[in-house]
Structure formats: structure tokens, C-alpha cells
């Protein structure tokens, strides 16, 4: 089951076709359910009508025959009554009935005790049809005391014609040849209306039993006939005939439904009841048999009535189930076929993803969504391949550029002094500097050198970044060296560099620069700030009188220099804006305040320690963000002379 679910989940055709089949099944269930319910109702009603019709016809046929007996009797009984003075004629009349009605078994014209005094107590003229031979006798005698028999007494006591209960014709020789008989009996009265005897006509009921037994509207249905006492006279189980009544079983096991059926049939009612018969749910249709007190019933098992319908229902359901299975299979095939390119595409995408970009994609000429997808995918593949080629080239170029940049970087870094201590021969100065380009090469610069007991130094920041800035920086740094080595003051150095830079500066690049000169003998510090960040002296920003303009912009107005008479023992920090304007991920700058904080406790630190501290602070502030600018720091302190 899990495997099946997994299979369905993984396979789009299986999933789609299953959804379609489920939807179709829901529609089928709803519509078939409604149809089944409706058709069951109508089949039911149809069955009831049919059974009732069959019963009606049967009763009609039987009563027609029984009516013939009555008519035969009615047509004859006036004769004996008119000849009550001639007992011998009774034999003639009883015989005549049988002659005129060969289907009758017997006829007796019987009189009250001693009605004909000369004939004794018993006088019963009886004719019997014995296979076509009619035998007539006087049958009353002490051993055949007919006065107490039902056929005689019923007519007498009820004072109207009536049918007896069916009974077995007495045949002492062979029980099994006994025939079921019933008698139609009618009281005879003299002129004064006094009862004189009974005329009784017997009829074999073999035909009736056969007629009723043959009524089987459904394969397992059967018919029964009961008498006024509920006794079975027709029943498929012959052991019940005459021996059991419709109530017999209820004497042992309570069965109100059965009792109600029996009572209704006894009462001569006509109708239909649903109840359990022999443990099976049945419809029982019942109807009285004419003027007899008998009642006929057809017992139809409900399952039987609905069996045809149930077979049809099973067939329809099987067809639907098979249809749904077929539908599922066909849809799955169709969907699978339609989506087959997707599968190929999927596997090829996997191949492509694995690196085989030149794998050929199928083109089945489809123009639908799948075709479009395939084409898009193919286009994407082509783009990807050309992009990859491009990328390869670019990567190669970039690698070459990077290697060149690395060389450039090395060259650039080689331009600035990086050996510390900076002045190994001097013990009166502690100087440390560092330059960290944001990219491979940067636009920052610093420099320092000693000349004639004077130390020249500078920190600068070229506008822009990258290679142009680095080239400009290289030019600027060389100019600084060349000009400063001529023993010029910082102002002169600035003016000359500016003059050089202004020439042919089509790119309008410029450089901010702080140029200083320290007289090591006196501690005098001359400097010229050209648009650069103010340096920090002993942890405070050095207030500047002249900021001047950056170098390389234009000639003209002279640069102004400043002097601090003695900086011995004082800590000087030169830096580029890569320090105070270092940005973190949120593009928040480190700021001057933070810088002041950092420098506040740095008075006792060596130049190297100060720079390391600041570098670390910048690192921390950036918190992994890519450096936004080159960072250059230069720190120095003239040590007190001992």
C-alpha cells in the first residue's frame, strides 16, 4: 500500500488519472445511487402489482370452478324440496347432479333422523362418481352417523349454504390415494321453512391444489391456502398439509406478524404483509377464495422479488467498475504519452545539471504547452551553453586580470615603505604605517623618508578607486619623493605636485593629501593639508587653520602651510577616510566620535599598537562587510631625548 501511494505520488500520470477516475466515480455513485433507489422502488411496486395480479387471476380461476359447483347445486336443490313425499326420488336427483356435472365427486341428499319414518333414523341418498361410473346408495347407518358430520351440521346450524373445510376422502385401503375433497352444502327446507336436511355436493380439490401450487410468480415464491381454522391445505411442504396451521409455529415461538397474517386471512381480508416466513423476509399477498372460508396467499421472498434487479445492479456496478478501471488505464496511457516529453526533459535536465550542456534535446514538433516548454528549455540550454562559453572566457580573462592586478598590487605596495622600524638608526622616533586597499589596488598612499635630519611624510587619498586611482597614486607618490627630496617645505611640495597633476588631467582626478616635515633636532613640525582629513594629535582632532584644496584640481591660489613648534612626545595620527567612514553591512560609518573614543585611551600605546587597535576596530565595525574604501594609517611619536 505504501509502495502504491509512493508510486502514485511520484507519477503525475497516475495521480492525474486517479483524480479523474475518482471524480468520475463520485459522479457515478451519485447518479447510480439515485437511479438504483428509484428503480428499486419501481421494481418493488411492479412486483407487488404483478403478485397481486397473479393472485387475483388465480382466485378468479378457482372461484369460477367453485361457482360451478354452487350453480349445479342451486339448479338442483329445488327438486328434492318439491318431492319431500317421495324419498326414492332423492336417489334420482343425487345421481342427476353427478351426471350433469361429471367433474363432481359425489352428492348426498340427507335428511334429519326419522324424517321418512318408514326409512328409519338414517336417510342419505348418496351418489358417487367412481371413474365415470356413478354408484348410488343410502349411506346413513349407525357406523356412518352423518348427523354429526361437518357437511351436514354446518348447513343446518348456519342456515345458509356453505363450504366445508377440505378433508381427505375416506379410503381405508390406501391412505396415499386419498383425495382432498370439500363439500358445498345447503340446507333444505320444507314449505313451512323448517329444516329437513342437507344437500351436499363433493368436489375433489386435487385440481385446486395443483392450480394454487403452480402459482409461482418468482423462482422461490410459493403459494399456500389455509382453511377457516388456519390449517394448511396447500403448502409446498406436504408434511404440513392438514397437520399444521398457520399459527402452529407461533405456539412455540412468539411471532406477532405471523399471527396478524393468519387472523387477517381468516377474517377474509385481502392485502399484503411483509414478514419473516421460515426465517426469510417475505411479502405475503393474500386474498379470500370466494364464498369459501379459505384464503390463498402467495409468499414472495423479498430477495426473490429484487433478484432480477439485484443481478442488474451487480452487472451495472461491475460495468461501472470495469469502465472506471479502463478509464483510469486509458487516461493514464494518454497522460503518460502526452507527458512523455516532460519525462525526457526531466532526465535531460538532470544530465544537463550534471554538466553535459551539449546534450541534444528532443524536438517532436509539438506546438502545445509541452512543446513550448521543450523549446524554451532548448533555448535556455543554448543560452546556457553560450553563457558558459562566455563565462569560461571571462573567467580566463578575469584570472589574467587578477594575476596582473596581483602584480600591480605588489608593485603598489612596494612603492610605500613597509619595513619597520621605519628608521632603524634612529631611536628618537616611533613610526608605524599601514595601507589596506579595498580592492587589489587602491588609491591611498603614504610615504616617509629622512633627509638631512628631517623627516618628510605624507598620507593621501586619490579620488576614485581601483586601477585609475592606483596609477594616480603612483604618480603622486613619485612626485612627492622627487619634490620633497629637494628639501622643499610642505607648502612648496604641495604646490609643485599640484602643478604637475593639473597638467593633462583630463580625467579630472585629484588627491587629498597631508604633507608634513619634522625637524628632528627641534621637534618642529611643518605641514600642509590639501583637502585631507585633519590629523589627530594626542587623541584629538588637530584644529587646522588652512584646509586648502585637494591636489590636481587647478592652479592658482597658493597653498597655506602651518607649523607646530615642537611635537616631541606627542602622538600624531594621519589617516584616510577609510578609517572614520568605514561602513558596516547597514552602511553605518564608524564616525569621528567612535574614533575619538578609540584614540582616547591610546596615548601610551606604541605607533604599531595604535594602528593595530584601529585596524581591529574597523574590522569589528565592518562585521564582515566588504571594505568600502582603502584604509591607510600612519602614526608617529617623537620620543623624548634622554
Amino acid at each position, binding site marked *: 500500500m505504501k509502495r502504491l501511494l509512493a508510486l502514485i505520488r511520484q507519477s503525475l500520470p497516475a495521480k492525474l488519472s486517479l483524480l479523474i477516475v475518482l471524480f468520475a466515480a463520485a459522479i457515478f455513485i451519485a447518479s447510480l445511487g439515485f437511479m438504483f433507489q428509484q428503480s428499486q422502488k419501481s421494481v418493488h411496486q411492479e412486483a407487488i402489482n404483478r403478485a397481486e395480479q397473479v393472485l387475483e387471476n388465480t382466485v378468479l380461476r378457482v372461484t369460477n370452478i367453485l361457482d360451478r359447483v354452487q350453480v349445479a347445486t342451486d339448479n338442483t336443490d329445488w327438486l328434492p324440496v318439491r318431492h319431500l313425499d317421495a324419498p326414492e326420488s332423492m336417489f334420482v336427483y343425487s345421481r342427476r347432479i353427478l351426471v350433469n356435472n361429471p367433474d363432481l365427486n359425489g352428492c348426498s341428499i340427507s335428511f334429519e333422523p326419522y324424517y321418512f319414518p318408514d326409512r328409519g333414523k338414517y336417510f342419505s341418498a348418496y351418489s358417487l362418481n367412481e371413474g365415470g361410473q356413478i354408484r348410488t346408495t343410502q349411506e346413513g347407518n349407525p357406523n356412518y352417523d352423518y*348427523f354429526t358430520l*361437518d357437511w351436514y*351440521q354446518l348447513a343446518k346450524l*348456519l342456515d345458509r349454504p356453505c363450504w366445508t373445510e377440505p378433508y381427505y376422502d375416506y379410503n381405508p385401503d390406501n391412505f396415499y390415494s386419498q383425495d382432498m375433497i370439500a363439500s358445498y352444502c345447503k340446507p333444505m327446507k320444507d314449505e313451512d321453512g323448517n329444516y329437513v336436511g342437507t344437500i351436499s355436493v363433493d368436489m375433489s380439490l386435487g385440481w385446486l391444489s395443483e392450480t394454487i401450487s403452480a402459482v409461482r410468480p418468482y423462482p422461490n415464491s410459493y403459494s399456500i391456502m389455509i382453511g377457516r381454522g388456519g390449517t394448511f391445505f396447500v403448502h409446498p411442504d406436504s408434511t404440513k398439509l392438514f397437520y*399444521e396451521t398457520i399459527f402452529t409455529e407461533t*405456539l412455540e415461538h412468539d411471532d406477532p406478524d405471523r399471527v396478524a397474517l393468519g387472523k387477517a386471512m381468516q377474517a377474509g381480508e385481502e392485502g399484503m404483509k411483509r414478514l419473516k416466513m421460515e426465517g426469510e423476509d417475505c411479502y405475503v399477498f393474500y386474498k379470500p377464495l370466494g364464498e369459501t372460508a379459505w384464503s390463498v396467499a402467495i409468499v414472495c421472498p423479498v430477495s426473490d422479488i429484487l433478484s432480477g434487479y439485484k443481478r442488474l445492479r451487480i452487472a451495472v456496478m461491475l460495468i461501472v467498475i470495469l469502465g472506471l478501471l479502463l478509464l483510469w488505464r486509458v487516461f493514464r496511457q494518454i497522460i503518460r504519452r502526452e507527458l512523455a516529453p516532460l519525462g525526457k526533459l526531466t532526465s535531460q535536465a538532470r544530465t544537463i545539471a550534471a554538466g553535459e550542456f551539449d546534450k541534444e534535446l528532443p524536438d517532436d514538433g509539438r506546438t502545445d504547452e509541452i512543446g513550448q516548454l521543450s523549446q524554451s528549455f532548448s533555448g535556455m540550454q543554448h543560452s546556457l551553453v553560450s553563457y558558459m562559453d562566455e563565462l569560461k572566457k571571462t573567467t580566463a580573462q578575469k584570472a589574467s586580470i587578477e594575476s596582473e592586478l596581483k602584480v600591480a598590487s605588489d608593485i603598489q605596495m612596494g612603492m610605500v615603505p613597509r619595513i619597520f622600524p621605519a628608521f632603524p638608526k634612529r631611536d628618537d622616533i616611533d613610526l608605524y604605517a599601514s595601507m589596506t586597499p579595498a580592492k587589489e589596488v587602491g588609491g591611498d598612499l603614504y610615504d616617509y623618508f629622512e633627509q638631512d635630519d628631517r623627516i618628510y611624510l605624507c598620507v593621501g587619498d586619490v579620488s576614485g578607486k581601483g586601477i585609475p586611482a592606483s596609477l594616480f597614486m603612483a604618480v603622486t607618490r613619485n612626485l612627492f619623493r622627487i619634490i620633497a627630496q629637494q628639501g622643499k617645505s610642505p607648502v612648496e611640495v604641495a604646490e609643485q605636485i599640484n602643478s604637475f597633476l593639473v597638467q593633462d588631467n583630463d580625467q579630472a582626478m585629484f588627491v587629498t593629501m597631508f604633507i608634513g616635515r619634522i625637524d628632528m633636532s627641534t621637534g618642529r613640525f611643518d605641514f600642509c593639508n590639501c583637502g585631507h582629513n585633519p590629523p589627530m594629535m594626542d587623541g584629538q582632532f588637530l584644529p587646522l587653520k588652512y584646509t586648502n584644496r585637494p591636489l590636481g584640481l587647478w592652479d592658482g591660489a597658493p597653498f597655506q602651510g602651518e607649523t607646530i613648534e615642537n611635537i616631541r612626545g606627542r602622538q600624531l595620527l594621519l589617516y584616510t577616510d577609510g578609517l572614520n567612514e568605514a561602513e558596516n553591512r547597514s552602511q553605518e560609518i564608524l564616525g569621528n566620535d567612535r574614533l575619538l573614543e578609540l584614540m582616547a585611551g591610546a596615548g601610551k600605546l606604541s605607533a604599531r599598537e595604535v594602528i593595530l587597535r584601529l585596524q581591529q576596530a574597523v574590522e569589528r565595525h565592518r562585521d564582515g562587510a566588504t571594505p568600502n574604501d582603502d584604509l591607510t594609517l600612519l602614526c608617529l611619536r617623537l620620543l623624548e631625548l634622554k
Partner: protein
Amino acid sequence: MNKTQTALLSLLLLTAFPALAQDRFVFTPQWTPQAQFAGYYVALEQGFYQEAGIDVVIEHPTSTRPALDRVFKNESQATTLQLTQALEIIDSGVPLVNILQTSMNNALVIVAREDVDPLTRKGMRVGTWSAGFDQIAVCLSLREGLDYQWVPFSSGVNLFLAGAIDATIAMSYNEYYQLVQAGVSITDRNVYRFSDHGYNVQEDGVYMTRAYFEKHQDQARRFAEASRRGWEWAAEHPEETLQIVMDYVQKYHIATNRVLQKLMLDEILRLQVNWETGVREFRLRPDMVEKASTLMQENQLLFHEITYDELIGR
């Protein structure tokens, strides 16, 4: 005659000989086979009669050869009779001896239409057996001034069911259940049980003519003993007894069924218990003989008193 035939004949003679040595005894119950006579069937089938040294043959009466006729003609040595019947016969001058009394209580009932109290309908048509058994009911009708119009029927309950009569006499073990089985509603009102109203007179017993009894006292005693054993066994084994009864019923094609016979057997066995002592006593009660005799005399059913001693073989 070949060897096989000779052997068969010898075997037949050998097996037949002990039976020939026994007394042949024809017993005729007063009605067709039914559970009313279960004890006798049991005694025969279980070999109690054989053990008692009597070769009993049970022959049921037919319409042309009623039980009493057979006894009078000595075709049958014993029959069952109700006490009131026996009294009538003795009164008519045929001395009879009760050799075994099985019934301790009266089974007679009158069943009227639903919700009709039989005692409230004077002059109504009441069905009764043409063969008798209705002496107590006649006494009731006369004593209570009910003036019932008796309608004799040969058997069954059809007259009542057809509405030809207003009520019918029935035995609580037989027709009563036939009526129930025919869908007749039994209520508190429409059934009158004689045993509940001072008419509790014993019924079935085994009788033979005094003449025969005088000559075959020992045989009569042995028959009675074995019959009593049959009844006691029946009371202890109702299921097996019912099967024996059904075998008889089926053999004689009696229009009845197992349910009816079971109810009949239960009721018959219930009637055999003295309700005062709770014991199956198998004895004629002098007080009941006296009660029956007095009742019947009062109502002109007997011309003279029949005493207990006249019924008993000494």
C-alpha cells in the same frame, strides 16, 4: 426347501416361541394415536410389557370398531375410559374394573367466543363429542340452569370456527390447543375450566370387564404395573416420549403435529399429578368417585350410586 430356507424357518420359530409363551393382551386406547396414550406406547417400546411377561398389542379404535365394542366382544382386554364414562357403563349393567388410574385431575374446558363468559349465555349452542366424555359439562349445564343446546360433532373444531356454534367443549390437552392453533383468542373470560370450579373429577383410567379381571387378576396387575412404569418413564423422558408418540402419530397418519403433541404430553403429565400432594399417584380417589357419582345422580346421568369399591378389583 433349501438349506437357507430351513435355517430361516428355524430362526423364526426360535424367536417366536418366547412370545407365544407370553399372554397375548390387546389394549385399545379410546381414541386415535396421540400423546394422551404416551405411557402405553412407552411401556411397549421400552419393553416394560415384555418384561412383565405380557405380549401387549395396542390396537386403536376405528369408526366401525369403537374401543368399548371391542372390550365387550373380548377382542380387546382393556381400554381407557374417563371415570364418568365408566360410571355410566357400570350403571348400565356392565361391571368394569379400574386396573390403573392415570388422570388425577379434570381436563374438561368450555371455550366460548372471544370475551364471552360461557356461564353468562343461557341456551347457547355448545358443541360436544358425539362419542361422549361430556358428562361433567352436562352436569354443569343442568346444575347452573344454563340450558345449553348441545350440538354433537364427530371430531375437530370446525363447527366452532365456522361460527355454527357459540361454544365448544374441549379437552385442555387436545381440542383446547387445536383451537389455539386455529387462531382462537383465549382470554380470561372465554375459557371455563371445570377443574377450577368444584368439578375436578378424575378422568383417564384403564378399565377391563370384571368378568375378564376375575380370571386374569395377575395379568391385569402386571399390565397396570408395566403401564405405570411407562408413564413414569415418559414423565422423566419427555423428549424421547414425544418422539415415540410422533412415530405412532405418523404411522397412523393422524392430522396433528409435533407442537400439538408436545403441548398435549405436557398437559397430560400435568394432569397426572395430584395438585394437592404434588405426586403422580396413579390411584382412583374415593372422594372423586363419590363426587362424580353424586353429581351424575343428581343430574339423572346415573340411576344409582356407583361406589369406589365397585370400581376397584379386590
